[in-house]
């Protein structure tokens, strides 16, 4: 149950052009900012939107291909969708919602209801079969939506921002449950989200799109340590610069030189976490490398630390303890010295 697709959708100025594959049992997250084309890609896969170019091949069957005028209507492709706001049918009970798919595919009523009951039991809602969608909590509705999509035994499962409508606490719990259900599902899953945590925790592989195009793919480790764009770097909380490397010295376009722990030649990215940046009131003595004067642009809370945004020869984010922040008198406009430990800065080739 595998997916190979190239999705090209043109809408005015916007063009989505996306290669996407998913192996049986694999969970692929499509991660990107709002307006990147994630939902468009999902709608194209589901057949709710015709692609202008490219192809969709599901289990070796070419379900969409404009070049040969092939298009399969949504009701004839076996693709389950969990919509962002779930779209549970308001006039039906939870049980009827889940039984709807099997019924629509011609399964006898009693069998469909038995299937639906089993699915609702699996997602822990055996007690809520008769409830209407509006009587369910957000987390429960999400699970009904998942059961409804899976009850049709889809060859591909699509999840559109499956956790976005939930509050923080329910989200944590539902995410863990969803992870369990996805690992029990044999088909391929494509998950759309703008939340890096959802993507990292639920997906085996991440496809990051910006402005309709793939900017980076990889597993969680690759994405979190080697971001290729500012957007990804911001998502995973790293400082990211592009420059030319000679040995361990990377020259940025501004002429500023960063010393890294790794040696590379040519076009590279340099990444380091905000916690690797230390701040001093006076110029630190000792190693003159990776030390520069900077001006505090903003101070905000970030977990247990203070996140300091600095301007200067390079814009950089630094994390310091609240105690250090008070001691240094960090407030916008203050000039200080920043120092980066070379051992914490890694360089890697720019793709």
């Amino acid at each position: 149950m595998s997916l190979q697709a190239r999705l090209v959708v043109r809408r005015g100025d916007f063009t989505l052009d996306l290669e996407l594959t998913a192996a049986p049992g694999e969970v692929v997250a499509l991660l990107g900012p709002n307006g990147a084309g994630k939902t468009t890609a999902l709608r194209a896969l589901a057949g709710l939107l015709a692609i202008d170019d490219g192809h969709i091949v599901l289990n070796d069957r070419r379900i969409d291909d404009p070049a040969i005028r092939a298009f399969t209507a949504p009701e004839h492709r076996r693709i389950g969708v969990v919509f962002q706001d779930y779209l549970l049918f308001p006039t039906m009970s939870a049980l009827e919602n889940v039984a709807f798919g099997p019924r629509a595919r011609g399964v006898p009523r009693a069998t469909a209801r038995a299937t639906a009951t089993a699915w609702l039991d699996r997602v822990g809602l055996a007690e809520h079969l008769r409830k209407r969608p509006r009587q369910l909590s957000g987390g429960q509705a999400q699970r009904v939506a998942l059961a409804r999509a899976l009850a049709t035994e889809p060859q591909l499962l699509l999840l559109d921002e499956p956790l976005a409508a939930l509050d923080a606490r329910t989200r944590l719990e539902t995410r863990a449950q969803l992870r369990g259900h996805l690992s029990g599902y044999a088909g391929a899953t494509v998950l759309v989200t703008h939340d890096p945590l959802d993507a990292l925790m639920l997906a085996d592989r991440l496809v990051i799109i910006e402005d309709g195009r793939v900017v980076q793919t990889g597993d969680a480790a690759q994405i979190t340590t080697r971001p290729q764009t500012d957007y990804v770097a911001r998502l995973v909380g790293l400082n990211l610069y592009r420059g030319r490397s000679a040995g361990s010295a990377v020259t940025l376009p501004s002429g500023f030189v960063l010393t890294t722990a790794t040696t590379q030649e040519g076009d590279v990215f340099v990444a380091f976490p905000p916690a690797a940046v230390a701040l001093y009131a006076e110029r630190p003595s000792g190693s003159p490398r990776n030390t520069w004067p900077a001006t505090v642009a903003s101070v905000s809370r970030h977990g247990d630390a203070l996140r300091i945004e600095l301007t200067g020869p390079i814009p950089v984010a630094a994390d310091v303890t609240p105690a250090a922040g008070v001691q240094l008198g960090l407030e916008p406009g203050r000039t200080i010295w920043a120092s980066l430990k070379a051992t914490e800065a890694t360089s890697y080739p720019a793709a």
Partner: protein
Amino acid sequence: MVPAFVGLAFLVFPLVGLLVRAPWTTLPERLTEPGILAALRLSLLTASLATVACVILGVPLAWLLARVSFPGRKLVRALVTVPLVLPPVVGGVALLLVFGRRGLLGAWLDSTFGVTLPFTTTGVVVAEAFVAMPFLVISVEGALRGADARYEEAAATLGASRWTAFRRVTLPMIAPGVAAGAVLCWARALGEFGATITFAGNFPGRTQTMPLAVYLALEQDVDAAIVLSLLLLVVSVAVLAGLRDKWISP
């Protein structure tokens, strides 16, 4: 405030007049006159049949207008509302020209099936449906526009055809709108006069509905006209009140 009260009085006062002038003492005998009961039965029957016809044809038409975009949709929507503003007598004349024995379709219906519509009970239903259908279409189209079309998409991803999605998902969601439209439609059909008398004539027991009987009675026996009017008023108000609590919430 004053214009509001004047407006209310203007709407209610004629009904009060009807009650004041009603021949209460002779009411029971008058109500059981065979002519009256026949007219009432015919009115209820034709209005109900016309409503059923409007629902069967009007709901798909409303769906088409609300959900499918096609060239000329605005024009079609305007055409649907024409019977609403058209004087009913003109509607009746137009129906005669089309379904009359020598009409565009009537001649064909007559020669092929031996069916003639004008001056028959079926003709009454046709005339009433023609006049009342816009009420249903407008009401259902409004309800459809208010219902999120994405539910139909969700149904499609679950394997439902368009028809199944409409029948099992959308129709239950817009049921109050359909009910409201059907009630308006029925009330309009019940009161239909102009198109009916033009297209179906005024034959007691066959095409003489209550409004026609009222008109006829007014020329001979005012009290009879009042009794008929009162009956019509009671029937419409009763049906409206009965359905209002059940389906139509403001």
